[in-house]
């Protein structure tokens, strides 16, 4: 009961923090916060595969990038395309890509899954790079305007205003994160974890493994697509470098691992840590990747469960309250 109240206070504090954030820290950090939120959602979808289903997606940028490109293309070519459908298109195309690939991806696991996703990720990357008529090649797509948020007959909010966009983006991502969190708590979410722990047992219980894997994959693809879509709206520019290249696939892996793959909130913490670190490091040097890579190696070596795991261990050691796992 007491624990429950603690949780609500924490959520309330988080909501208030997010609400006053742009007014306290200014526009630059408001955009910074939106980027953090986008990558949190992106890393959480990766973790739904890595931590929950036990497979590593090495080409996760294909979902993220497809969502970003879909939104950018829709906004460029269809005049007056409304805002919410633009995000929905991003999510749908991410999910559709996952649906197309799922018959191949559900058959493999372990290293083979990682390589197959890497291969498809590179394939999508090369296609986006070469078909300039649609994707703009290396230059990417830019110059589209962000439509206002229209609720017919009620209100029309201008999204070119940074503060408005901040609230809108945070709301969209918070809703997505809540849906995903709820999804992991459903019986279906438990089945996914069951596949990670003992696929054969789930099979013997009479559940259909490939279908469960495929649905999880499609959910991840769709939400990664939404993350990409919001990213496209934030940056007002979509190019292969940043949303589709291999480092865009590695970023969420870093975040998930540094935060902790064992928990739902780990990747969010990892995203926060990496963004803060980047903000700090960039004042001294441009070589952020060096710091990130070194930290990543250390985490894989010494803290395989990430910061969340370290925190749990410390809690168990010093307070003897938490259960020793």
């Amino acid at each position, binding site marked *: 009961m007491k624990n429950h109240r603690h949780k609500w206070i924490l959520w309330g504090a988080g909501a208030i923090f997010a609400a006053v954030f742009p007014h306290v820290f200014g526009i630059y950090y408001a955009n910074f916060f939106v980027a953090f939120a986008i990558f949190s959602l992106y890393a959480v979808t990766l973790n739904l595969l890595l931590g929950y289903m036990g497979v590593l997606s090495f080409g996760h940028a294909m979902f993220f990038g497809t969502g970003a490109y879909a939104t950018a293309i829709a906004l460029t070519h269809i005049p007056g395309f409304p805002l919410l459908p633009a995000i929905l298109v991003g999510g749908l195309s991410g999910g559709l890509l996952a649906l197309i690939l799922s018959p191949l991806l559900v058959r493999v696991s372990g290293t083979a899954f990682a390589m197959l996703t890497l*291969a498809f990720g590179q394939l999508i990357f090369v296609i986006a790079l070469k078909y300039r008529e649609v994707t703009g090649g290396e230059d990417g797509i830019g110059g589209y305007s962000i439509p206002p948020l229209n609720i017919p007959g009620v209100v029309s909010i201008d999204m070119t205003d940074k503060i408005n966009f901040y609230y809108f983006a945070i709301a969209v991502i918070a809703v997505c994160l809540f849906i995903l969190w709820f999804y992991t708590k459903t019986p279906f979410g438990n089945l996914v974890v069951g596949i990670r722990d003992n696929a054969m047992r789930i099979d013997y219980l009479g559940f259909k493994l490939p279908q469960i894997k495929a649905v999880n994959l499609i959910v991840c693809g769709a939400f990664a697509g939404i993350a990409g879509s919001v990213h496209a709206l934030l940056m007002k520019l979509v190019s292969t470098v940043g949303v589709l290249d291999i480092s865009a696939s590695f970023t969420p892996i870093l975040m998930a691992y540094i935060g902790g793959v064992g928990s739902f909130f780990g990747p969010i913490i990892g995203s926060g840590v990496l963004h803060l670190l980047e903000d700090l490091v960039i004042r001294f040097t441009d070589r*952020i990747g060096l710091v*990130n*890579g070194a930290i990543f190696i250390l985490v894989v070596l010494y803290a395989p469960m990430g910061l969340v795991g370290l925190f749990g261990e410390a809690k168990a050691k010093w307070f003897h309250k938490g259960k020793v796992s």
Partner: protein
Amino acid sequence: MSPTTVLYVAQAVHGLAYGMLLFLVASGLTMIFGMMGILNIAHASFAMLSAYFCYQVLLMTENFWVALLIAPVVAGICGILTERFLLRTVHKQGHLAELLITVGIMMVILEAVKVGWGAESLVVKIPPSLSGLVNFAGLTYPIYRLFVIGLSVVILGIMALILFKTRLGKIVRAAVSDADMVSALGINTPLVFMLVFGIGIWLAGVAGAVAAPLLTVFPGMADQLGMDAFVVVVVGGFGSLGGAFIVALFLGELNAYGIQFIPRLAPVLMFAFMAIVLAFKPMGLFGERE
């Protein structure tokens, strides 16, 4: 001979040179995968590192041959240290952790060379004894590309002799097919792993150093070589040297002629082909194990 034929032959030589370089990189990659089950994402990064070493040694000694000798060895030592202190530490955590460590190493190398040498393309000059053209049967070839092909053939020949004619080679081949069983026979497999990892990196290092004058030395080198080598290993079959050889040469030619005739489609075809092979034959065209 007609100019068209000359063009075709010249492209074929280009393709052959690039294919041999690819095979130098891919052979180490496929051996390491076959033995240790690690897909070494950082493999081409070590090749790039070797290219930078080559540039540095050349700057200091102004002798290309010394650079060609030293750079791959230094890169190989880096590889051995990596295996000993990073990969072996996470070995008990499983293949996923090993894969992720190599991702970290790739990122560190990519940024480290930018810190050390900057992000610009560095030009490595072809030594005077290898520059210029040679006439042969009415055609002119650049000597350096012929040298690349010749050197690769010699190195691969020596490697093949070691692999198929010596006791060490026998152990390595046995470990590729079943490392646990070899270990049970009382052979120090961690040492063999370390050795193979080092030699694999050394081979990649030779490719990197030799490629330095052809491709110029720049931080994107690892991506270019790495993805192509990855395709070679995947399509050729994991742990299969013969498969890697065939696919490397094919890819080299595809690269050379593709740029000429289908500049847009060639890379797309390459990755599409790999994805299809991987989807339906997860162990590659010539891979033996499932």
